[in-house]
């Protein structure tokens, strides 16, 4: 049996514990991903999708439960230490890149993710050549604009850059947090296509949060539906083939109604 690339067991995070506002963001969450899994996470607002991603990335320390990446327990590592395993593309194109720095500098920051940084000169000629090559694959002309400030790029260009930055280091785990939600449909498709190409070419283990049911069906090999901080429904590879949006919504409602009835 191969080790899971990501394993979350009993992940629990409670906000405002012991007050009237107590809210269970994660409630005994169990998820495990095999190497190469491309898992889509769906669920309504407040279901815990973002908390799940933040817990994995280390931004949200768990109250209880364990997280391990490729067999290594990372539960107690903070976010910047976990970055050696994890790359992340944020929903907001403004957050995932450093807007006042150049494209080349952003690529440099990503290349050294989780590696020791020294006092030697950053953007060497060799690095610039390599970044140009990596960016050329996007067909956006970014490879010719290494010295341009990222803030001057459009949202789509920035998300594409974010994506290249994330995958260029072949992370053990790729987290995509509704990374096409802020883009117009045409640009969203472009970024999504690039995502799929990179994930497949590099066999990256990926967690993608989305509100887009079409995307959930079209991409990836697994679907996780979350509700109230738990996994409600899991749909595996075979089942996922040929499933429709209506099926997904149907299954989601049946299950959550069943739980509601049990509770009553």
């Amino acid at each position, binding site marked *: 049996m191969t080790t899971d690339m990501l394993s979350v067991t009993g992940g629990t995070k409670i906000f405002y514990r012991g007050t009237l506002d107590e809210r269970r963001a994660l409630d005994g969450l169990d998820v495990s991903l095999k190497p190469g899994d491309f898992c889509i996470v769906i669920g309504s607002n407040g279901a815990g999708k973002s908390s799940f991603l933040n817990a994995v*990335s280390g*931004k949200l320390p768990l109250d209880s439960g364990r997280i391990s990446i490729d067999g290594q327990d990372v539960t107690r590592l903070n*976010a*910047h*230490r976990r*970055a*050696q395993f*994890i*790359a*992340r593309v*944020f929903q907001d*194109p*403004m*957050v*995932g*890149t*450093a*807007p*006042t*720095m150049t494209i080349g*500098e952003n690529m*440099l*920051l*990503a290349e*050294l*993710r*989780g*590696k020791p*940084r*020294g*006092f*030697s*000169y*950053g*953007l060497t000629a060799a690095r610039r050549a390599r970044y140009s090559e990596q960016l050329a694959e996007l067909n956006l002309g970014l490879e010719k604009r290494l010295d341009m*400030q990222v803030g001057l790029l*459009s*949202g*789509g*260009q920035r998300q594409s850059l974010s994506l290249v930055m994330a995958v260029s280091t072949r992370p053990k785990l790729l987290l995509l947090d509704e990374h096409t939600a*802020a883009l*117009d449909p045409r*640009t969203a498709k472009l970024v999504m296509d690039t995502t799929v190409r990179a994930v497949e070419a590099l066999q990256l283990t990926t967690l993608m949060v989305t509100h887009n049911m079409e995307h959930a069906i079209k991409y990836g090999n697994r679907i996780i539906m979350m509700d109230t901080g738990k996994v409600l429904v899991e749909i595996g590879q075979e089942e996922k083939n040929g499933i429709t949006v209506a099926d997904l919504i149907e299954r989601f409602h049946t299950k959550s109604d069943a739980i509601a009835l049990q509770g009553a």
Partner: protein
Amino acid sequence: MDVFNSFYGLIPVTIAQSLIVSFVVLGVMLPFRILSFPDLTSEGAFPLGGCVCGTLITAGVNPFLACFIALLCGFAAGCTTAFIHLRFKINTLLAGILVMTMLYSINLRIMGRTNIPLFTYDTVFTILAGPSANFPWTKILIVGLLVALVLGAMLYFFMSEKGTAMRAVGASPDMAEAQGIDVGTATIIGVGVASALSATGGSIMVQTQGFADVNMGFGILINGLAALIIGEAITGRQTILRQVLAPVIGSLVYYQLISFCLTLGLAPADLKFATGAFVLLMLALPNLRRTGGGVQIREKIRE
């Protein structure tokens, strides 16, 4: 023509002064622009550097060593401000004010009185230049070389692997953390270095003016901010070279302007008001120009 003659005669003295203060302006720029950490510690770190250096020199310590110890004290002050902000989630400005206020007592304790004259002691300048130490051009040469050295070091650092990471912390902390950068440590070191620069400015200042005084830092921060804004208006901020040059160029221009206004007859008492009004105007200008700017920014995100 009298006015111009007296202004003209003051130019070298003013250049020397502005070069010294450019350390403070660099110390204002670094947290404010590079780390997005508006910091007021400089106002306390500048006299701290002066008081430590002055006290040590009168105690017979080598002036170079005294400057270095002053620098270390400034570093500690800056680290304290950053730590207070990070650990207790206290607003950066408030953290700076707290440290600055407490430093006033510390400065008094260090000196034991409010003022120490240094005229009779050896300073860095008398050691390096002997009897010509008091000529403005001697000071310009020595301080100018030091400023050039610091600028070169800063420029190289901000283009190095570590320096790029520090800039990322200010540009986008979430992104920096996701790239494995320890945001807290980078902030503490960055703000520490900024205050170390301000303290260095203070330690040089006491040696050129011949005395150390607890009140010597009063208003230095707003002067620094004004100089920074002028400098950025001249050099722009597009590249790290421009950003690092702005404080020094701004300081050189700002103090000439002040000197010019004073010779024209501006009462020294009105100086702080004039400076404050100027900074306010410069900070408000972008908002006055584009009404409904929020909409424009949103448009940009959606390309």
